């Protein structure tokens, strides 16, 4: 039995602000992992998206930590991870380490059943030659999703529950998140995670989230 004093804050009390898409486009950099030049880059830049090509040779998922939206090709990408599924495997590794990121995979083999299954952890699967309209719609959806701290927390929360973190611990972390956003101090959540009796893996996820996603969102809200 436990007694908790006070009224819990509602998650719906944060992240209700309308996203300024123009501002989000100007501020948020989108990472592309591809062994070839990213064909829609120029057109997307003309539509004011910020695209950063990181190449195919990713040796650790840490390299994509600063980018909330990742576009990942399947063939010839992430070979260092040693999986025959190449980029599809990298997508699931990124998802494991950063559950809150918006991941777009794209491939020339959109029909392939093994690849479709392997890409289940991507938010969106696109074809290499999808139209510019499709790219714009997908990236705008991604910007809306990742600009909202509530949505990003919901993604992380699902990952914590999947890893067996107790509901009560998740609740306490959620309260810390709300306080972090309200007081514009990402370290409130980080400190809470460090002092929680949760697994090292879960702790790591929350700490990474505070240091990257939450810090960036709060920084953006403060105009930094």
């Amino acid at each position, binding site marked *: 039995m436990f007694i908790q004093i006070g009224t819990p804050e509602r998650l719906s009390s944060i992240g209700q602000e309308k996203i300024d898409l123009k501002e989000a486009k100007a501020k948020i950099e989108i990472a592309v992992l591809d062994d070839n030049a990213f064909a829609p880059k120029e057109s997307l830049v003309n539509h004011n998206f910020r695209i950063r090509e990181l190449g195919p040779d990713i040796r650790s998922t840490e390299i994509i930590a600063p980018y909330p939206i990742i576009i990942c090709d399947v063939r010839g990408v992430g070979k260092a991870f040693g999986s025959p599924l190449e980029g599809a495997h990298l997508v699931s590794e990124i998802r494991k380490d950063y559950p809150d990121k918006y991941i777009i995979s794209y491939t*020339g083999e959109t029909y392939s059943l093994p690849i479709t299954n392997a890409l289940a952890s991507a938010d969106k699967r696109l*074809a290499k030659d999808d*139209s510019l309209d499709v790219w714009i719609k997908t990236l705008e959806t991604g910007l809306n999703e990742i600009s909202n701290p509530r949505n990003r927390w919901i993604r992380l929360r699902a990952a914590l529950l999947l890893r067996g973190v107790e509901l009560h611990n998740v609740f306490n972390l959620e309260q810390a998140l709300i306080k972090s956003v309200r007081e514009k101090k990402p370290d409130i959540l980080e400190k809470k995670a460090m002092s929680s009796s949760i697994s090292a893996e879960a702790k790591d996820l929350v700490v990474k989230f505070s240091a990257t996603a939450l810090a960036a969102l709060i920084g953006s809200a403060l105009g930094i």
Partner: protein
Amino acid sequence: MRYDKQNKKILELSGKLALLERQNAELKAEAETTKEILNNTLHEIRRFSAQLSKFCEKLSRDTSGQTNLNQTALSVFYTAGMISSRLAYTDIELNPRAIESQTPIRSGIFKKFDKAKRILTEEAKNKGVNVNLVGESRTEIEALPVFELLPFVIIENAIKYSPPNQVVEIIFENYSGKQLVTIKSQGPDVTKDELQRIFEKGFRGASARTMPGEGLGLFLAKRVCEFQGISICAEVRDGRNYTLNGIRYCEFLIIIKF
């Protein structure tokens, strides 16, 4: 029991089984090779198609002041889009789950038909066929990438089967709150029985059998309509039949209801 006869039979069957197993292994290896070739080809076509779209988009931007050049650049750009659309259809044929990952885009119906008409301008011109868009439509739908195929194959079919110097009309009407698009053209005569089967894969009416074609256009159109949840039917106008160069023609209508 005649053991010799039975043993001989077992030996024969074992030999046949070994042969079948060998053939099976060969066929599996062949299927794997074919699959790999298909994977590589589709991958590369998509890559080139993306490049083509990129260059054409740039070209159409850079030539915005030069009408003819700009029109050609746009036609190439739209044609590259048709490659993508056709491949999107192939994806669904090979793996029906592929439709789940296709992103619908809010698009105007009129614009889609106009785009298909532009791609087919040369084909129509070579045959002396005029393709006219009649009426207006502001109806928009959540169009899957595969939708582009629908106006294209229907207008292409209408041009292909039309006698020279005729008109293909694409009529936009509102009926009981629904958007109707009717493609009216002159085509080889279709009997009532044939009309029932006109959307079947590979089916061709008796009057059309001497003309080039594979009976795929309307089949594709029907499938795309199924993916999009729209209805399509074919009609023939009675009493307007005539014979030209030994082929019996009629007024042929394709009606799409959105």
